[in-house]
């Protein structure tokens, strides 16, 4: 099993709250990992620490054996899609990707390939990003994540704003990326849209990893959505 992401004893404390508490986990190539948990469980914080946006208070994260900040060509190792709402509003989608491609030392043709990959038409990519709907912003953020054709793909609530065709497309892509040997980590609090695609489920609750299991360990022949729902409301639930 090829471990691509290692998280060891990761703790992230803010002045008033501990967002992550001693979290350790491994992500493996060729798998879709679903990170679930209630609001405030620490899902987004974990992703932000993973890609260097937030600094861990204790513990470590490594991608292909190295911290994210020391990767030589990070865009080709990790592609992350975080909060699509905030985008530079005066720049067109294509210009936004061109700026990122330039910073990542990627050829300009990757911009058009990434736009094609996420199904963003040329005339839409030429419009200012400030005019985009949430779904279009989500696709642009996904295109940015895919610019470097990365080996590890990290997505935070990727179905937000996507229409039914977009969700169907994303489900197919998740499977295709994993089948091509990539590591996929998806954080979501929605159990209905992506659960059927996953290989492993990680459950966070109040900053702690309370369950890390393969999909077939959870569903026992039942519907995976029902199994996840029960898991969240009992094992990792706040009612206890």
């Amino acid at each position: 099993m090829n471990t691509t992401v290692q998280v060891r004893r990761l703790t992230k404390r803010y002045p008033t709250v501990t967002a992550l508490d001693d979290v350790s986990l491994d992500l493996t190539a060729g798998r879709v990992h679903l990170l679930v948990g209630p609001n405030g469980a620490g899902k987004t914080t974990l992703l932000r620490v993973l890609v260097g946006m937030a600094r861990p208070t204790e513990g470590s994260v490594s991608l292909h054996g190295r911290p994210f900040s020391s990767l030589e060509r990070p865009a080709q190792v990790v592609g992350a899609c975080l909060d699509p709402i905030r985008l530079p509003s005066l720049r067109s989608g294509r210009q936004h990707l061109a700026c990122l491609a330039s910073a990542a030392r990627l050829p300009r043709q990757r911009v058009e390939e990434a736009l094609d990959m996420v199904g963003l038409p040329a005339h839409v990519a030429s419009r200012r990003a400030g005019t985009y709907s949430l779904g279009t912003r989500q696709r642009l953020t996904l295109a940015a994540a895919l610019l470097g054709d990365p080996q590890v793909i990290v997505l935070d609530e990727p179905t937000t704003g996507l229409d039914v065709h977009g969700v169907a497309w994303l489900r197919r892509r998740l499977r295709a990326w994993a089948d091509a040997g990539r590591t996929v980590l998806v954080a979501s609090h929605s159990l209905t849209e992506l659960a059927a695609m996953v290989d492993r489920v990680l459950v966070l609750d109040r900053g702690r990893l309370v369950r890390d299991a393969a999909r077939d360990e959870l569903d026992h022949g039942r519907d995976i959505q029902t199994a996840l729902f029960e898991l969240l409301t009992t094992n990792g639930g706040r009612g206890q």
Partner: protein
Amino acid sequence: MTHLLSAQARIVATTRIALPGVVAMAAFVVLTGLAPAVLFGQHRDSHTVLEGSATVAVVAAMLLGALQTAGDLQNGMIRALLLVEPRRLRLLAAQLLVSLGLGAAVGAAAALLADSTQAALGRLDLPAATVISIGLGTTVAASLCGLIGAAVGVVVRNAPLAACVVVLWSYALEPFISTLSYNVYIYLPGGARESLVQHVSAHSYIPPPLIGGLILAGIASAAAVLAALTLSRQDID
């Protein structure tokens, strides 16, 4: 590093703040140079006009730098960039250097426009060497102040607030300090700018341009260090 400079230059060009900012600055310099003579028949001496254009250029450069970096932090551009270049100090260096270059362009444009308007009015009565050295002083002052503005934007992290800080500092706090103590003022960006454009005062000591340039470079270096400490320690939203 060149790829980051190229990316940052592209970001500045596509943010659509720089060009309107430079055009507004140019219009202001031309109007303030021409209006008194054309509308009221008043003639100010060339040195005063060139100093005025330097002030406008310096404030414009600071504003452009501050709006760029604070805006990039606010609108998620920095986060997107850090995903492809996680070395924060490299990214900051590119931002500061591009702001330095943009400031130089703003300073040079302001000096050329001020010289041109004075020449058009037949009022450019300074020796060529003085005109050139004031132009160079304006360019140096605006470039370093562009860098200082970019550093302010990183520290403040909010574009409207950063703009307020720059304007209040330049048009309220610094003039106020100059009335309290000119000996303190000469060590501030405004005082250093006056040295660089060879301001003449019958009452106060104005350091020579080279000293003014070194003072401003020192302030810019301190601002860059402060911005580096801020960006390297903070979590990015």
